[in-house]
Structure formats: structure tokens, C-alpha cells
């Protein structure tokens, strides 16, 4: 539009000048100048037309700039004149924008980022479902190979599995994040090498004789300083020698957004890295019933996910049936499995625990921003009301309404700009602090990496401008329309002028709006905080106090099974000998550590119930229950004999006994498990939490370590000493057994448990913070409104006092007004709060989304806030001298 106007102006100017020149030329001719000379003479009298046009253009530009500059200077001057207003306005906007930008950065990092490969939207994952529930998202090697070969929907179906790798250089061990991959992995992801070449199908097949590996660009640069000589060199991974054949391209760090991968090895070398549970045959990696690989497939161009889904489900089912052998899962069970495709653009096995909390927070933050805007609008309206006289004078002196409105808008934009700048600073600070809070206790590389990026900055700038327009326009419109005469006469200040009344109604509406939104936030915060406290006090079934957990994996050093066992025995006996240690044991699954293992089993004489014939397991040493203070119900604990020949025993929890052997005494019962074969129950223990705090207890079978071997365990130690001392003590003991043994994830058990609820902690913390902010903004708004009412009704108050009203009557008058506002806000806010917290239900624990107690408390808090906010102006009202008030004009 600007451009069009400019063109029109130029054309008009051209017309005007031409008319002038023609007229002049005509007059010249009339005064006798010959025709050809006339035009020339006219031009000379006129001057340089081009220069004239330039001067006029300059005038156009300069005037606009000048008046804008005036407006800006005036805006800053008037803001400096009301420092309190400016401070509150800029800070409330800054906080709103800062919080929004910070959370949006998280949304960006978690929900919107995609894998840095070409066309990530073509990537999909595969999941197996049974009876509508997801049962598996990893598959066996032959299954994926068959799917890759026979599917027409995909450009490749690859599999991967993350492992921990110990890189030995000279005499030190470096922990790395590694990945076992299938031959078409790099092709499917369309990753290019930065140096050398990447793994292919042939490499997987020949890996037994010739183990190759590919390292990441980051590792190559960071650890090996980008040395090109590394190509063809050998690396000692978990004690095995691998030849480096290539480096992946810069920017690729694996298929998991938040865990960068340092090195990829062929899937056929699985035995080198899965030293724990699966010390299986060298061919185990391609066993048809061993499901371990996580799939990532790329859709053929032009194939939609729906089409691929339709093609894949029957094919996958067929392949599954072909591969299933007669095991515990009958063919009938295999037939019940269905397969679904899900989006893989954000990487493999991507289940960020922060996805839902971030969405919830985004909602809260938008509400806070709206409240901040409403607050600002309120502040500006109040300010405009106070300046009504000034505007009246200016209007009467000839200022145009448009100019006045423009100047007010510039003022709003100035506030928005300052608020936006402050918001950006706050955003950086909030992101930084949140990251520190979230990543405590996590090893490097596992934590979240969030940084404000251009998208975020653009978002916050857009937000600032939008808010400027939103709250700049309404008050500006209002302010530029005062009734001149009563304003100038000054009589409007005592009565309710037209503007005053309208303005107050709008302000009341804004306050009610603010209160309603704040109520929603406070209610949500209340629910989330109660969820957190419920989670923290949930009955674990055991006592984590003073228990330390640490992971030791001698298999990573390449030790044999016997040597590993000896190491563990030595560690346990030395730990138990320590005076400061009450009990020590080890287990394959550290409680609430996030791991879980399950096996199939069958109970003789009981009919097989498909999905029920599966139980969760743990593999433990003696004293496990003593270490955790897990109460025993009947029978005995394991001792040194259990697991050896003739003593194939297990301990089960109460739930297992009740579910699978109802009515029987579980002690002495036998059943057949997929691991360990025929076993006898020798003990029953109390139910306890296994995977996470939110789950209901599950049936659990404990196997003795000597029965089913693993080479990596979590050592659990109950200490009598305070934290730091205990950690040092344990480390020293382990080192005394074998100084070259790396220790992973050593922490207090309580810390590990807390990590599982880190997203709830964040949610609760942040929502509480926001509700404080929202309530503060509301109280400022209420204060402003009541103060305005008091100052506007000074005469009325004076009259009341004069005719005998008591201080308490006047106080009551205004306190009632404030309570009415809160009540109105509650009237709107309560249904709003109830409607919106339905969304929270999936995040809550131990409270329902319409919890009455929390709701009542919330409303009471607001009533208190309203009263508190009105205290100062009401107190001022009671101090009014009737004589002075009546004199006030």
C-alpha cells in the first residue's frame, strides 16, 4: 500500500509541475517570446525540474521521519516521567514474553526438531500390537531382513541397537555411546561419509573375521583431532580390535536426537557388546526369536504412511508366522499380533518424557502472556484516563486525532520493544537455569540440549509486536476521544464522565478476565504440585534411604564369565566387611532405574492365558532384599547354594503368587520359565515398584544370579555413612578389587528414583512459578482499579464521612467491590479451569482433574489476594478528611 501511494504521489507531482510549466510557457508566448523559445524560457524560470522533484521527495521522507522521531522522544520522556508505570509495564511484558520464548525453545528442541538427514519425514518406525496394546518395538534380525527384502513400500528397513562401548587407548578406558547396525542402515538414513566409506551388507556378513567400525565426525574431531591417519587404523572396543573404515558426515550424530552416537559396528558383532545378559552363541544376533533391533525404515518417495501401513501389516504378520517356532508363544498368539507404523522423523525409539509437560507448559505460558497483556492494557487505560486533560488541551490546540493516536501507539511500541528486549534476556536466563535443573545427575550426552535459535527469536519479536498492537490500539482509541469541554473545565474528574465510565467498565472486564485465567493456572499448579507430592510419598515397597546404586560391567573389559563372577564376589565380600556398610548385593535391574526385563513362562496344570503368561524378572544375589529392606512374606531369601545344580529356585512377589497360583501355597510350587527352565519357589516377598513410580505393582520373579548369568550388574549398597563418604568408600573398595574397572551411574538410589519423576518436578516447579506471577499481576491490576476508584470518588467519600459514615463503612464499600471482582472472576474462572484441566488428567497422579479441595483452596487464595491488594487504597480512603475532599476540584 505504501508503494501504491508513493506512485500516486509521484504522478500527481508530475501533473502539477507539468501544468505549471505549460502555463508559464503559454504566458511567455503571449508576451511575445517565439514558440520554441517559450518552453525553454519557462524551464529556466522554473529551475531544475529533477532537483525540485528530489526536494519534494525529501520533504515527504523527512517529515515522516521527523514526526516519528518526535513521537519516540516524547514517548521516552513520558515513560521516564512515570517510572513506576514504566517499570511494571516493561517487566510484566518482559516476563510474559521471556517465559514464552524459553518454553518455546524447549518445544522447538523436543517436539519440532527432526533428524539431520535428508527428508526425515519419510522415516518411520514399526511397532507390534496385541489386543490394542503395544507390546514391542524391537524385532529380530531375520524379521527385519525379510521385511527389507519383500516390502515394496520402503526404500530400506534398517535396524539398530544402542550399546555402551569402552574404548581402550594405552591404559585408559573411555566410555563411548555405540550402536550396532544392519547393513542397509546408512543407505536407509541417506548418510554420507566425511572420510572413507560406511558399513554395507557385506561388512556385516564378514564381520566375524574382519570387524569394521565407523566413527562419528564429532568423535573424530574431538578425540582424534581430525587425524586422517585414523582411516584404516585399529580401535580397541571392549577388548576387541576394530578397523576404522570411515567417518560419518558432519552434523550426523545418530538416529536419536538427544543421545549422540560415537561409533557404529556391525550387528553381527553383537556378542562383543552385549556382555550382560546375552552371553549367547556367536550366531545369536540372527536368531529368529531374539528380538533386539529397533527398526527405522524410509518410505519410498510418493508412498504415504497410510499406504505403507496397509501394505506392511499383512506382510509383517506373514513373516512373523514364518519365523515363529514352537515355543512358549504358540502360533495362535503370533497371529494375534498386528503391526503399526509410526512417525520416525524425530528418530528411533523417541519417547521423550518431556513431550507432554512441554505442551502443558506452553498452554500455561500463553495464558500468562494474555494476563500480562491484559495487565498492560489496564495500566495504559488508567494512564490514558489520567492524561485525559492533557489530550483535551492538545486536541483543542489543533492536534489531529490521528497524530495523537499515532503518538500513543509509538509509546506502546516503545514499551513493547523494551519488554521484548528484556524478554529475550530473560529467555536465555530461564533456558540456562532450567537446563541446569533438569540435567543434574545425568551423564554428559544424555541430557537435554536446548538453545534459543532464530525461530525462537522471530517468535518473540512477533509476539512483542502483536502485543503492542493489541494493547496499544484500544487504549489509544479511548484516550483520543475525550469530551473536550468538561475535561478542560475540570469538572470531569469529580463525576463519572463518558470516557471514565466506559474506561472503568473495560478495566473491570480486563480484571475479571485476568482473574479467570489466573485461577486456571493456580488450579493447575495446585493439581500438579499435589501430583508431585503424591508421587514422592508413594509406597515403594522398599526403603531407598541410604542405599547407593552403581553399575559395573566387567564384560566390557573383555573378561571371561568366571573372572566376572569372581570380581563380583570379591566386591560384595569386601563391601560387607566394611564397618560403614550395612548390606551389599547386586541385581540386574536396579529398582526404578528404567530398565525392565520380562520372560514367558508356563505353570503346569494351568491353562495358558496369552498375554498373562509373561512376568517381569530380576536377577539378584543373596541379601538383595536385606539391602532394600524389602519385606519377606514367607519362605526364605537366596543363599550361596541357590542357582547351582539341584537348586533351581526362585523368589516371587505376592502379586505373582496371587495371580498365577491363586488359592495355593506358593512355597514349593514349580513352574517353567523361558530362562532357567523348571524352577521351584522358595520365598515370597512384598510387592514393590519396579519400572516407575506411576505403575501399579507387577508380578515379579527373582532369579538367583548363579542360575542365569549376566556379566553386568547394578551393585546396591546400604550404608550407615553420609552420602559423600559412602561413595568414596565404595569407589575405593571397587578399585581395590580391580583398578581398571569402570564404574557407571553411581548415585544414591533416591536420586535415581527422583530422576524418574524429573518431568513432574519441572512441571510442578514451573507451574507454581507461573501461578505466582499470574497472581502478582492480578493483584497489581486489582490494586490499580481500587486505587482509581478511591481517587475518583473522593468527593463521594468526603460526603459520606461528613454525614456520619464510619471508617469501617467506607472500607467495607471498597473491599466489597474488590471481592465482587474476585467473585466475578471466579464465576468465569472456575468452569474454565475445570474445562481446561481435563487435558492434564494423563499427567496427574493421585488427584483427579476436578479435585474439589484444590479448587476451593484456589478460590480462597484469590479472595485473599483481592483483599490484600485493596488494603492500601482502602486504608487511604479511610484517611480522607471530609473537608479536603469536598474542596477537591
Amino acid at each position: 500500500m505504501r508503494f501504491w501511494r508513493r506512485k500516486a504521489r509521484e504522478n500527481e507531482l508530475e501533473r502539477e509541475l507539468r501544468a505549471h510549466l505549460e502555463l508559464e510557457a503559454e504566458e511567455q508566448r503571449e508576451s511575445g517570446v517565439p514558440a520554441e523559445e517559450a518552453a525553454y524560457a519557462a524551464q529556466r524560470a522554473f529551475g531544475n525540474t529533477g532537483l525540485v522533484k528530489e526536494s519534494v521527495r525529501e520533504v515527504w521522507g523527512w517529515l515522516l521521519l521527523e514526526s516519528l522521531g518526535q513521537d519516540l522522544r516524547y514517548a521516552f520522556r513520558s515513560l521516564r516521567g512515570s517510572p513506576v508505570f514504566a517499570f511494571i509495564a516493561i517487566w510484566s511484558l518482559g516476563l510474559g514474553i521471556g517465559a514464552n520464548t524459553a518454553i518455546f525453545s524447549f518445544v522447538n528442541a523436543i517436539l519440532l526438531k527432526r533428524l539431520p538427514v535428508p527428508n526425515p519425514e519419510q522415516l518411520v518406525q514399526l511397532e507390534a500390537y496385541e489386543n490394542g496394546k503395544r507390546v514391542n518395538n524391537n524385532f529380530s534380525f531375520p524379521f527385519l531382513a525379510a521385511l527389507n527384502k519383500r516390502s515394496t513400500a520402503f526404500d530400506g528397513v534398517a535396524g539398530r541397537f544402542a550399546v555402551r562401548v569402552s574404548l581402550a587407548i594405552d591404559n585408559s578406558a573411555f566410555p563411548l555411546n555405540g550402536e550396532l547396525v544392519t547393513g542397509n542402515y546408512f543407505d536407509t538414513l541417506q548418510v554420507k561419509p566425511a572420510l572413507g566409506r560406511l558399513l554395507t551388507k557385506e561388512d556385516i556378513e564378514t564381520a566375524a573375521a574382519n570387524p569394521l567400525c565407523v566413527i562419528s565426525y564429532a568423535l573424530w574431531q574431538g578425540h582424534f583431532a581430525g587425524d586422517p591417519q585414523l582411516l584404516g587404523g585399529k580401535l580397541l572396543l571392549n577388548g576387541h580390535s576394530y578397523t576404522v573404515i570411515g567417518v560419518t558426515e558432519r552434523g550426523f550424530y545418530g538416529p536419536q536426537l538427544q543421545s549422540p552416537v560415537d561409533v557404529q559396528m556391525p550387528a553381527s558383532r553383537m556378542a562383543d557388546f552385549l556382555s550382560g545378559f546375552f552371553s549367547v552363541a556367536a550366531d545369536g544376533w540372527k536368531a529368529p526369536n531374539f528380538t533386539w533391533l529397533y527398526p527405522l525404515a524410509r518410505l519410498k518417495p510418493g508412498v504415504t504412511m497410510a499406504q505403507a501401513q496397509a501394505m506392511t501389516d499383512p506382510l509383517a504378520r506373514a513373516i512373523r508366522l514364518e519365523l515363529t517356532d514352537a515355543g512358549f508363544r504358540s502360533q495362535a498368539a503370533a497371529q494375534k499380533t498386528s503391526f503399526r507404523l509410526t512417525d520416525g522423523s524425530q528418530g528411533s525409539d523417541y519417547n521423550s518424557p518431556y513431550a507432554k509437560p512441554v505442551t502443558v507448559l506452553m498452554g500455561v505460558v500463553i495464558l500468562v502472556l494474555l494476563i500480562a497483556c491484559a495487565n498492560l492494557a489496564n495500566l495504559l487505560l488508567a494512564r490514558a484516563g489520567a492524561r485525559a486533560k492533557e489530550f483535551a488541551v492538545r486536541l483543542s490546540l489543533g492536534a489531529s486525532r490521528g497524530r495523537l493516536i499515532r503518538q500513543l501507539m509509538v509509546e506502546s511500541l516503545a514499551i513493547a520493544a523494551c519488554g521484548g528486549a528484556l524478554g529475550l534476556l530473560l529467555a536465555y536466563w530461564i533456558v540456562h537455569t532450567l537446563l541446569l535443573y533438569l540435567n543434574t545427575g545425568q551423564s554428559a550426552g544424555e541430557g537435554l540440549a536446548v538453545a534459543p535459535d532464530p525461530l525462537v527469536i522471530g517468535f518473540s519479536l512477533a509476539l512483542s509486536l502483536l502485543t503492542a498492537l493489541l494493547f496499544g490500539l484500544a487504549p489509544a482509541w479511548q484516550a483520543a476521544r475525550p469530551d473536550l469541554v468538561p475535561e478542560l473545565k475540570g469538572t470531569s474528574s469529580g463525576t463519572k464522565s463518558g470516557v471514565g465510565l466506559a474506561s472503568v467498565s473495560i478495566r473491570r472486564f480486563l480484571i475479571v478476565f485476568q482473574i479467570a485465567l489466573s485461577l486456571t493456572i493456580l488450579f493447575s499448579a495446585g493439581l500438579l504440585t499435589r501430583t508431585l507430592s503424591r508421587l514422592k510419598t508413594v509406597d515403594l515397597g522398599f526403603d531407598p534411604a541410604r542405599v547407593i546404586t552403581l553399575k559395573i560391567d566387567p564384560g566390557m573389559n573383555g573378561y571371561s564369565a568366571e573372572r566376572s563372577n569372581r570380581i563380583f564376589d570379591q566386591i560384595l565380600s569386601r563391601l560387607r566387611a566394611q564397618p560403614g556398610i550395612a548390606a551389599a548385593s547386586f541385581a540386574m535391574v536396579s529398582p526404578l532405574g528404567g530398565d525392565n526385563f520380562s520372560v514367558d513362562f508356563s505353570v503346569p496344570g494351568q491353562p495358558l492365558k496369552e498375554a498373562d503368561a509373561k512376568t517381569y524378572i530380576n536377577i539378584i544375589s543373596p541379601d538383595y532384599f536385606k539391602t532394600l529392606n524389602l519385606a519377606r512374606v514367607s519362605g526364605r531369601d537366596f543363599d550361596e547354594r541357590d542357582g547351582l545344580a539341584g537348586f533351581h529356585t526362585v523368589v516371587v512377589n505376592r502379586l505373582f503368587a496371587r495371580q498365577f497360583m491363586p488359592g495355593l501355597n506358593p512355597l514349593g510350587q514349580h513352574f517353567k520359565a523361558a530362562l532357567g527352565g523348571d524352577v521351584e519357589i522358595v520365598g515370597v516377598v512384598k510387592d514393590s515398584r519396579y519400572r516407575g513410580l506411576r505403575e501399579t505393582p507387577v508380578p515379579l520373579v527373582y532369579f538367583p544370579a548363579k542360575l542365569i548369568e549376566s556379566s553386568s550388574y547394578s551393585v546396591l549398597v546400604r550404608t550407615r555413612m553420609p552420602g559423600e563418604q559412602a561413595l568414596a568408600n565404595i569407589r575405593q573398595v571397587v578399585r581395590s578389587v580391580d583398578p581398571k574397572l569402570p564404574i557407571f551411574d553411581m548415585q544414591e538410589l533416591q536420586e535415581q528414583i527422583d530422576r524418574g519423576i524429573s518431568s513432574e518436578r519441572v512441571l510442578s516447579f514451573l507451574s507454581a512459578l507461573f501461578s505466582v506471577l499470574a497472581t502478582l499481576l492480578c493483584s497489581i491490576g486489582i490494586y490499580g482499579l481500587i486505587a482509581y476508584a478511591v481517587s475518583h470518588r473522593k468527593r463521594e467519600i468526603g460526603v459520606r464521612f461528613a454525614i456520619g459514615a464510619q471508617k469501617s463503612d467506607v472500607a467495607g464499600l471498597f473491599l466489597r467491590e474488590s471481592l465482587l471482582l474476585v467473585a466475578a472472576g471466579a464465576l468465569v474462572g472456575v468452569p474454565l479451569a475445570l474445562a481446561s484441566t481435563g487435558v492434564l488428567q494423563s499427567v496427574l497422579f493421585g488427584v483427579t482433574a476436578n479435585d474439589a479441595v484444590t479448587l476451593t483452596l484456589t478460590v480462597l487464595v484469590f479472595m485473599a489476594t483481592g483483599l490484600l491488594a485493596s488494603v492500601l487504597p482502602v486504608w487511604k480512603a479511610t484517611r480522607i478528611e471530609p473537608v479536603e475532599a469536598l474542596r477537591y476540584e
Partner: protein
Amino acid sequence: MPKEPSDRIELLQGTLDMLVLRTLLFGPAHGHQIAKHIQRTTEDLLQIEHGSLYPALHRLERKGWIAAKWEAAGKDLKREFKYYRLTPAGKKQLVAEESKWKKLTGAIAQVMWPVEE
């Protein structure tokens, strides 16, 4: 041209504004008419390039002291000219400029020809 163009323009800008406003006090006129009027009434003493009027006219229009309208004129109403007229704000501005000018010339006169007490 004896003087520096910038000097001349600067000097004339403020006074040119005043002259234009004064000219329009008698009624609306278009650019050519204004130029001719100034020339005539100053008996050709004030030789201004016609073109230099136009930046002044546009500036005055932007400031709201004069208003413009295209109207048909000329012998047979076939031509159109952009006529300017004084606005009430412009009238006030003229008064202000006049008094400023009088003060200025008065001050200069005092310096040049001090009144003997």
C-alpha cells in the same frame, strides 16, 4: 548565482513559508499563481526559481497549514490545477510567523540603527 545555493534555500525556506501563507491569505491559488504573485508584489526584487516553491508547498501541506485540491481552470476549464488554500491552523501559523519576523527585524534594526535615548 552570487550566493551558495544552500544559503539561499535556507534563508528562503522559513521566509518562503511565510510568504506563501501570506499569499494564500487572500484566497486559494495554484503554484504558478503564487509564484507570479510574489514576483509581482515584490516588483521582481525577489527572484525565486518557481520550482523552489513546490517543496515549500508540500511541506506546508504536510504540516496542515495549507490544504490542496485539484480543480478545473483555465480559459475553457479544460486544464486542471492543484489549488492550495490556507487552513485555520495555517492562519494561526501565519500570525506566529509574522510576529517572529517582526521581532527578528526589530532586533536587527536595533543593532543597526540603535534608537538614541
